[in-house]
């Protein structure tokens, strides 16, 4: 979680901006509907009190789950529970009708399920949809801490049938079920290497990408992924990774999408700090925690240098 907040700060510094999420709109509508079910004038009064105690606008409060819940508990104590439960039910209903929930029936019926869990689920589905529908020419970073989340993202990323799919991984055997055109380990690709990584390693990598692209006879884009690009940083090849990412940023091969996943839980704060230019080389960054969010490159600082 600490690493995630450092990454969010990094994204802010790089002037990435979060894409709009339907979860905020769903939360807003759910709170409105739930409060108005108690009474329209009541809803107005409660929203007014909440805005007043937080000195924020209605939109700012009603799109922020924690702020809303905290304010409700401050105003009504335990009495807030009924409204909060109602908000959760309405949010779930909206999520289901908008096809933004994969929660199972036992998960839905679990009383420990919170509004935040519902919103996280919506954002997670949105991130998966984004990865599934991503255009043919994107360079995306995925910052994760959970292997399960990575599996889901990679599964969506590699879902198009006709596209050639390739993966660079420390353990390619973990992904045998993904029906990949090519999966290769760092050892197989680079052979024995010692830091600092040389130009020829980057060339090998580009050649590998070009080789996969050359086999693409379909109209769909080639999809290439790296399951944990922190391998470079952990092995002291941060400079090599930066060079590679910047070269992909400047000249992303045509009809090719590249997903670079980073298991940020494996990095120390100092190593994360060194990732600024690595992250900044991506068109989009998807971050898993605190809840899935897709960030868009706001200010092109590398590609058009």
């Amino acid at each position, binding site marked *: 979680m600490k690493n995630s907040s450092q990454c969010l700060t990094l994204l802010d510094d790089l002037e990435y901006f979060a894409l709009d999420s339907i979860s905020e709109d769903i939360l807003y509508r759910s709170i409105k509907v739930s409060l108005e079910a108690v*009474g329209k004038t009541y809803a107005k009064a409660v929203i007014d009190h909440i805005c007043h105690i937080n000195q924020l606008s209605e939109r700012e409060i009603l799109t922020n789950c924690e702020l809303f819940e905290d304010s409700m508990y401050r105003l009504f104590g*335990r009495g807030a529970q009924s409204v909060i439960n109602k908000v959760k039910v309405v949010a779930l209903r909206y999520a289901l009708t908008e096809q933004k929930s994969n929660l199972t029936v036992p998960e839905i019926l679990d009383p420990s399920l919170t509004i935040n869990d519902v919103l996280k689920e919506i954002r997670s589905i949105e991130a998966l949809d984004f990865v599934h529908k991503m255009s043919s020419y994107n360079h995306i970073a995925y910052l994760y801490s959970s292997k399960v989340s990575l599996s889901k993202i990679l599964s969506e990323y590699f879902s198009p049938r006709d596209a050639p799919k390739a993966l660079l991984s420390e353990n390619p055997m973990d992904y045998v079920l993904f029906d990949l055109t090519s999966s290769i380990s760092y050892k197989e690709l680079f052979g024995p290497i010692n830091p600092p990584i040389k130009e020829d390693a980057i060339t090998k990598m580009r050649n590998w990408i070009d080789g996969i692209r050359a086999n693409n006879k379909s109209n769909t884009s080639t999809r290439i992924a790296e399951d944990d690009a922190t391998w470079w940083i952990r092995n002291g090849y941060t400079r090599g990774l930066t060079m590679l990412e910047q070269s992909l940023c400047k000249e992303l091969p045509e009809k090719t999408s590249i997903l670079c996943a980073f298991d940020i839980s494996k990095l120390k704060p100092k190593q994360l700090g060194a990732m600024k230019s690595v992250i900044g080389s991506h068109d989009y960054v998807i971050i898993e925690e605190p809840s899935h969010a897709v960030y868009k490159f706001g200010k092109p600082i590398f590609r058009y240098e």
Partner: protein
Amino acid sequence: MSNDNVQKLKKQSPKLYFDTRSVRNNIICILIGSIGFTSVLIILSPYDKKAIICDIIEPLAATIALGLSVLVIYRQKTDGVMGKAYTFLGVGLALFLIAEIIWSYYEIVLEIENPFPSIADALWLIGYGPLLYFVFKMYRFFGASNSRTHQLFVSVAGAVLLLYLISGISQTADFTTQGRIVSFIISISYPTLDIILLIPAALIILNPMKGELTSIPWIFLAILIMSVGDCAFAYSSNVIALQKMNWVWNLFFVTSYFVTSAGLFWHNRFFIHDIKEKEDLKV
């Protein structure tokens, strides 16, 4: 912003100002003052005048509660859970007020003792219906205590109290005529309905909500006071030695109306926001 709007804003500011503590303290002070004043008035009055004073104060207290209730219904309208619940509370208070007026009319104007059962009894008993609706709606909305111990304790205490009261009333009951059987049924209806009201009210009070707007469960407190007073009244009415003390229970009813008024004032102050007012502010 035009001068008109500045004036409007100045007028609005106190209403929008979120200061529950000072409002609560003021209400408590006024409440203590009102209850203290009426209690002293009743207690210090000569024994033969106590009934008349009670007959004046009770309808007055009920009128204040009903007035605030009408204001709540007018501002809040009748939509939603709160709208419906407070409308029912208003109907209950209206029925209670009419019953109080009829009761006082018999005693002050006609100068005769109220018959039993009377029209006032019918209205009081019907008035329990809307009150039950209000209490159970709020019980569900605010979530009463889920503690098994609380539920068991309140239910057992309620059942024991009810059995005790019914057995006490039964001992002096006369089942020889149909009219007396009806009287008996009405006599036991009061404590039965009181206990039904008392259980959810006690469970809500036992589960303090602790929020800034719900720190004092005013109306549930009022219902608890009324139910306790009513049960005590039902019991003492059947014990000859205690009949002379019946005026004491009027203090409970007056207090209950005052606390209800405090609750309605609180609701009016903090739970209702006139939509029109805010629209007026738009420049």
